[in-house]
């Protein structure tokens, strides 16, 4: 598909936003300024951006415990994200959700999720809503390869197909379920081999190539909008950091050489080479994008650091919604 230079630069910038946001968050965690768990999305940027660039603002997505990238790609506010990660009142969840529950309902981002696979049935519910209302909005479920071994995934995939709902299943196959290689967790190598079992098409796409992800998702989304039902896109990708935290090399469960080989296929740098070779952008323009994002991240950190923690009264607020339709 023809992407304008402006669109391609926007995709580049979105990937850079994810990269720098995550690296900044990693540093803040390392220095003790950020509480809790941190599952960094670095390495997988092409998937979130390639997919979300194929979506409208009113399309829904559900995410995973590794969800910052999805929110950034859907247009999330870096300052509110950073504040949430620091547990501040100005954060997306008022400091009550943190990294694993970050969301923006106004952008159709129905939440990261701390339970592996649990977002998938929720995306099916959003897809049901779209069909129920006769809308052409779609719902995209992001999930990892390990999620497809969970019952919730199976139930949701089957139900979406049985009810013929506008849901696109995007599997980020990053080769590991936490610290266990996928090959120890399933006897098949490709999640798409499961798609036919539900009666939907499934395709493998290079998850390190933002344009490839985008093009495949565009078609899957177009089918869903036309009422042709669900499809599964499996993006082969890799997380550069550890399951949790900021370690890259020297972990016991995956060889350093493998990490280094995948880093050579860095989705941002390879895309930059293509932008330059294709005459879409100059190195200066690319550098300018990085500079802009660096400034945005610095501003986000400053905002978060200067924000207050929630008042004690916030503890019990928001458990229930007051009133109702009556």
């Amino acid at each position, binding site marked *: 598909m023809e992407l304008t230079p402006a669109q391609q630069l926007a995709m580049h910038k979105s990937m850079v936003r994810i990269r720098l946001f995550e690296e900044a968050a990693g540093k803040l965690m390392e220095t003790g300024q950020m509480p809790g768990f941190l599952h960094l999305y670095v390495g997988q940027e092409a998937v979130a951006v390639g997919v979300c660039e194929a979506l409208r603002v009113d399309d*829904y997505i*559900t995410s995973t415990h590794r969800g910052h990238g999805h929110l950034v790609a859907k247009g999330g506010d870096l300052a509110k994200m950073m504040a949430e990660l620091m547990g501040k009142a100005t*954060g*997306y*969840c*008022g*400091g*009550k*959700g943190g990294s694993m*529950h970050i*969301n923006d*309902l106004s952008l159709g981002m*129905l*939440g990261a*999720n*701390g*339970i592996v696979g*649990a977002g*998938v*049935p*929720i*995306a*099916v*519910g*959003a*897809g*049901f*809503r*779209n069909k*129920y*209302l006769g809308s052409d909005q779609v*719902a995209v479920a992001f999930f990892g390869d390990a999620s497809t071994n969970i*019952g*919730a995934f199976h*139930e*949701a995939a*089957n*139900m979406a197909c*049985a*009810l013929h709902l506008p849901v696109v299943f995007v599997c980020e196959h990053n080769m590991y379920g936490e610290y266990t290689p996928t090959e120890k967790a399933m006897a098949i190598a490709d999640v798409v081999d499961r798609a036919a079992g539900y009666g939907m098409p499934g395709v493998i796409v290079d998850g390190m190539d933002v344009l490839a992800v985008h093009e495949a998702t565009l078609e899957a989304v177009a089918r869903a909008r036309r009422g042709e039902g669900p499809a599964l896109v499996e993006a082969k990708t890799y997380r550069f950091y550890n399951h949790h935290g900021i370690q890259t090399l020297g972990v016991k469960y995956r060889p350093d050489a493998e990490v280094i080989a995948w880093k050579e296929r860095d989705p941002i740098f390879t895309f930059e080479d293509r932008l330059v070779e294709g005459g879409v952008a100059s190195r200066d323009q690319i550098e300018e994008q990085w500079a802009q994002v660096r400034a945005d991240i610095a501003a986000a950190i400053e905002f978060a650091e200067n924000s207050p923690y929630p008042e004690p009264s916030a503890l019990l*607020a*928001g*458990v*229930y*919604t*007051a*009133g*109702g*339709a*009556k």
Partner: protein
Amino acid sequence: MSDRTLTYGQAFSEAIRLEMEADPNVFIAGEDVGAHGGVFHTFDGVQSEFGERRAVDTPISEQAIIGLGVGAAVTGLRPIVDLMFMDFSLVAADQIVNQAAKLKYMFGGEAKLPMVITTHGGAGLSAAAQHSQSLEALFCHIPGLQVVFPSNAYDVKGLMASAILEDNPVLFVLHKRMLGLKGPVPEGRYTVPLGQAMVTREGSDVTVVSWGRTHNEALAAAETLAGEGVQVEVIDLRTLSPLDTATVVASVKKTNRVVVAHEAVRFGGFGAEVAAQIQEEAFDYLDAPVGRVGAPFSPVPFTPALENLYVPDAARIAESVRAALARPLLG
């Protein structure tokens, strides 16, 4: 009150049909709720009136059924999702407990989840250990959920209407032994507010707090005890979460003795919470320990010979009341 009578089950489907008529965003989804009208026929007539779009037969996939409800509710619809047997709620526990109940809070209060999870609980049909449980205590323990367990047709319709109109997830439990129980039910829409217990029989000597089918056993026990000269005040909690502690405490302050009776296993049952609330709020008014009646610490047996022993009845409630009354006043 109306002259018209409906069964407990009919009152339920009437509430759904009236609310679906009033709000196009209300729909039902679950196993067999469409064409068949539900395995207990509690959804009879919904699909014939509203069509397949709004009365959706789903696969047997409890997690996905609740997930469908969560996703649809958070994006603006008002789903009623059915789990058939209360025991099956455990299959969907993640979606109920970790998703539906917590989404709003985790999202900083932004999300709204107007959804009703309906299910059929209770023993008495020789349905054995996986189709007979009363698991309300599990869900009362979860912040973010509301739990309703009505005892009669009038309340079923009014409480269900409230549950549908409510902007929070509600677990609505029907007792499967009471589905055919008839009672007066007015035509047209009305609501019984959530979170309000009801004094269903006034008395001065002792209070029995109960809900669901056991509440009706409590009324029978009260009748028996009246013959013995004991005036029992009976309270139907109707909604377990949020708990109407005030109504219970006011009654206890009047009667000074209280028994909590429910069908669920006594150990760790919701009666323990009610008893604890009473001693916190009305300790100085108590003339006897709070009595508790519940099922023994065992799975529900299959054979009627044992199931009848298992399920607490009016006789056991009366026995517990007598024990509370037998306790002499100190000092």
